């Protein structure tokens, strides 16, 4: 499949084709009923509640809106709108006809959405409960695994299953293998049986092995789900009386080689295969009541734009291999917001903004592009914005000013706050500073001692916060060469290298999913046993099974 269209991630409930969102007081019900003819690209029908990227874009929108627009929702019931089939997972024909890049991007996005569901349960007091009113196969079960609890209808035929290995010759790659053992603590030999048994397990066994939390007959199914939702509501810290913040349509202007949002711009340089991404600081001091400002609240506006831009570039601009990150504006104003986000962290809306920014930074962390931060006069890399610089693979800082251009400018400084040391943890559970100085406690302590202090290039270099601090004699030429050099390296090797360097420190469920599971899956995707003409993925539905090269690698 050639990428014939530009994928847009913006949607809203009135445009959903595959989902319905029903809010009843503190409980929301999210129902999947896929429009078979609503595939994002031609060539497949989304039968049996199977999904493609378009279905998942809507789900992502729902997850986001529930958090911002529905402070009153404390439990979310995820269920299916078909008889006997909750969800059959990712559409196989879609996978079979997709390019490798498409498959990889699709899986990454679905993984991020599932992590977002877990994040809502963990940090928003918005507990997701999977109400499996029919079979949850493959990606369908993986979706349920992202929920806090799984209730399966015990009707003698509905099952949970991960049939990818036996039927398709690939992995349950959106967290399935990982969550079965790491989250649900299913014994590894049972997990092995489960993942090789195409039809999966029903009722009692599923409960006994820990694959689901409860299996209940059809007549008491709704009651059980309601009971669990009620418990979750009672345990939630979310306010009941707060007014939601509407996620109004993003203001985004697209030109041939530029994309502009109110606080974010991207300038595309196709010849050099890079995009210059510039975040702008706030225009004013923070408002007293952030929620009242709604979607206009600067940190939220920046985060939404960044989120949209990352998804857009990742999906639609595969050849722009280098993202050059800058922040401009008044660092003092950035710091005022930075402080407010911390001081008012107990507020439901501020809490949502914080976690959304955290998730967006994580999206950046797992983005397969080289990230280069440039810190020069006028920079607003301070506090939460400095996280962008720290997320980058390299940081280049100008020492002094551009003598020829603006000799009177103030030299750039980098200013770190607790935002960089725990407010926005990475997927590995560490702050970006902890991860950067993993195993070098002295260096970490030295930086911690300087939080809140503007650091000039020499200090930033000394503290190990920047890759290279150069004066204007060298700066631009060095940067040009670095970017050209980067563009000349193998994109695949860079992706692998960056992904390995970015996550120093311990493994977590998330790092395992984006590292171990994804890497294996992506390898399997390109192997003939899956995607060759006789591979299982390509042959699925032809009535013939895959012919495997039996050699173990």
């Amino acid at each position, binding site marked *: 499949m050639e990428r014939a269209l530009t994928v847009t991630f913006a949607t809203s409930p009135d445009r959903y084709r595959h989902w319905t969102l029903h809010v009843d007081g503190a409980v929301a019900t999210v129902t999947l009923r896929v429009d078979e003819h609503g595939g994002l690209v031609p060539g497949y029908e989304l039968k049996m509640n199977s999904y493609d990227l378009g279905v998942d874009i809507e789900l992502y929108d729902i997850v986001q809106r529930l958090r911002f627009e529905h402070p009153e929702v404390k439990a979310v019931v995820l269920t299916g709108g078909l008889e006997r089939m909750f969800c059959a997972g990712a559409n196989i024909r879609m996978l079979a006809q997709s390019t490798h890049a498409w498959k990889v991007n699709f899986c990454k996005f679905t993984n991020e959405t599932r992590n977002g569901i877990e994040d809502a349960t963990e940090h928003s007091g918005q507990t997701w409960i999977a109400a499996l009113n029919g079979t949850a196969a493959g990606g369908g079960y993986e979706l349920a695994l992202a929920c806090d609890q799984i209730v399966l209808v015990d009707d003698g035929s509905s099952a949970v299953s991960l049939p990818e290995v036996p039927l398709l010759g690939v992995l349950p790659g959106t967290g399935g293998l990982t969550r079965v053992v790491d989250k649900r603590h299913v014994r590894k030999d049972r997990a092995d049986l489960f993942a090789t048994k195409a039809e999966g397990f029903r009722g009692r066994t599923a409960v006994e092995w820990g694959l689901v939390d409860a299996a209940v007959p059809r007549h008491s199914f709704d009651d059980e789900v309601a009971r669990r939702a009620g418990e979750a509501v009672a345990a939630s810290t979310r306010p009941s009386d707060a007014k939601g913040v509407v996620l109004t349509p993003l203001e985004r202007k697209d030109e041939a080689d530029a994309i502009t949002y109110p606080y974010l711009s991207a300038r595309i340089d196709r010849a050099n295969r890079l995009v210059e991404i510039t975040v702008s600081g706030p225009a004013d001091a923070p408002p007293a009541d952030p929620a009242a400002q709604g979607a206009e609240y600067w940190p939220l506006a920046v985060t939404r734009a960044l989120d949209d831009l990352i998804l857009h570039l990742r999906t639609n601009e595969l050849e722009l291999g280098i993202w050059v990150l800058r922040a401009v504006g008044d660092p003092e104003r950035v710091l005022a917001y930075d402080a407010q986000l911390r001081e008012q962290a107990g507020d439901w809306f501020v809490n949502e903004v914080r976690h959304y920014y955290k998730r967006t930074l994580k999206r950046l962390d797992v983005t397969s592009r080289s990230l280069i931060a440039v810190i020069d006069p006028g920079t607003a890399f301070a506090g939460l914005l400095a996280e962008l610089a720290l997320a980058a693979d390299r940081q280049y800082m100008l020492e002094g000013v551009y003598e020829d251009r603006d000799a009177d400018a103030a030299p750039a400084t980098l200013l770190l706050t607790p935002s960089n040391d725990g407010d926005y943890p990475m997927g590995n559970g560490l702050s970006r500073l902890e991860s950067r100085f993993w195993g070098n406690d002295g260096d970490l302590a030295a930086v911690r001692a300087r939080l809140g202090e503007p650091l000039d290039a020499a200090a930033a270099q000394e503290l190990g916060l920047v890759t*290279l601090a*150069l004066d204007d*004699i*060298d700066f631009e*030429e*060095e940067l*040009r*060469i*670095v*970017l*050209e*050099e*980067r*563009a*000349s390296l193998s994109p695949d090797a860079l992706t692998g290298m960056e992904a390995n360097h970015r996550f120093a420190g311990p493994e977590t469920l998330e790092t395992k999913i984006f590292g171990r599971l994804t890497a294996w899956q992506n390898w399997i995707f390109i192997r003939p046993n899956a995607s060759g003409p006789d591979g299982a993925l390509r042959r699925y539905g032809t009535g013939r099974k895959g012919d495997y090269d039996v050699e173990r690698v």
Partner: protein
Amino acid sequence: MSIDDTRTGAAPAPTGPLSRVDYSERIPNNVNLAGDRRLQRALEGWQPKFLEWWKQLGPALPTKDVYLRTAIAVGRDGWAHFAHVPMDEYRWGIFLAERDPDRKVNFGKHKGEPAWQEVPGEHRADLMRLIVIQGDTEPASVEQQRVLGHTAPSIYDLRNLFQVNVEEGRHLWAMVYLLHAYFGREGREEAEQLLKRNSGDLDAPRILGAFNEATTDWLQFFMFTYFTDRDGKYQLGTLKESAFDPLARTCEFMLKEEAHHMFVGTTGVQRTLERTAELMKEHDTADILPHGGIPLDIIQKYLNFQFSVSMDLFGSEQSTNAGNYYTSGLKGRWMETRRKDDHVLLDATRELRYVEDGQIKTKTVPMLSALNLDLRDEYVADCANGVRRWNQALEDAGLSERLYLPHEGFNRKVGVYAGHHVTPQGEVVDEDAWNARAAEWLPTPEDREKVASLMIPEYEYGKFAGWIAPPKTGINDQPVEFDYVHLADEGLL
């Protein structure tokens, strides 16, 4: 040292286009240093370190001044002038050959594209490596030759030694300019390293092996200048083809100066041979050491040694790097543009000799993988010319003995012959056989002592040590007995 000094002699009249050279600045140049204050500052910061290095590791013999050639322009002729100059006031300048605005890349995958005026990021590391390796050899030879002034066979030869030394210093400048101008901070750091590594220094040796061997005496100096400097000439010849235009133009200009270094080597060996032949004739014996001449067999051993270590400088016969450099446009072949082929070489092959089962065999390999060998073959052919010329001197003297180039596999430490023992005649032998006969082929400490015993300085104008014949003519139309060098303390004479 003004140009109209009557004793500066006639520099050739300029005939080619002359660049305006900014000779009034501290660093003579034709790269518009005056207009590039950043670069000027960078280089001026480097210059004191360079002078410090020159004082510590440059020529050890104290002199007042030396009749030296100084590059002042880059036209086809008239690019230099001659004058007596105190050596540490020598104006080491920066000159690039004239720029051809239409110059194209002539080979490799970028063939036909405009030559690069800036370093492409993709090739920065490789280009910098090539420049650093070339740059490292330039000061190395100055260090190797620093004590030779104490045993100079004549004031004429002393001057030639110093001329080679200051020009090698200028070649260092040329490479440092490229590092400063095009490679940012890393380039400056590399430029400093060029002065921190020193020939023969155990802790920080020069990069290439042959540049860490001591130059023990004047025969070795002439051999070095003939064989090892000639390697430099061939390396410069490949860099002169580079797609990176500033490097190409720098090397093109350096080749002008190298021609004189070749001359010193060729005539130095030749004059030694002439005297040797004369003494052999006169005393009707090959054993002329007692008569103050260097025996022919020792000359052959010196030749064998210097030729073989210089062969190693070309690197492995089969080299992926060399192929990559070529394909990327960084380094061409000798006389690239005169070659009649596609200049891409993807399908070309050539023969490669190698050792297997105690025999020298031949196989066919991709040309791109064997470009070091291609260059080395050109070099060997050039070396053979010199040997022919030297043999003419023996023939003219009515002697039947001849010098020869040893086999390419002789005494090799690098490439396909490394780890094998090959005689000068090309016979593969085992280690015992090699050890038994090595003293016949390579200079022994006794041989070097014998040569050293003849190395008595001769500082009287127009006089020559007994082991070497005088040249036919002087430098720059001056007489042979000209006062080419004024020593610091004339009282020492």
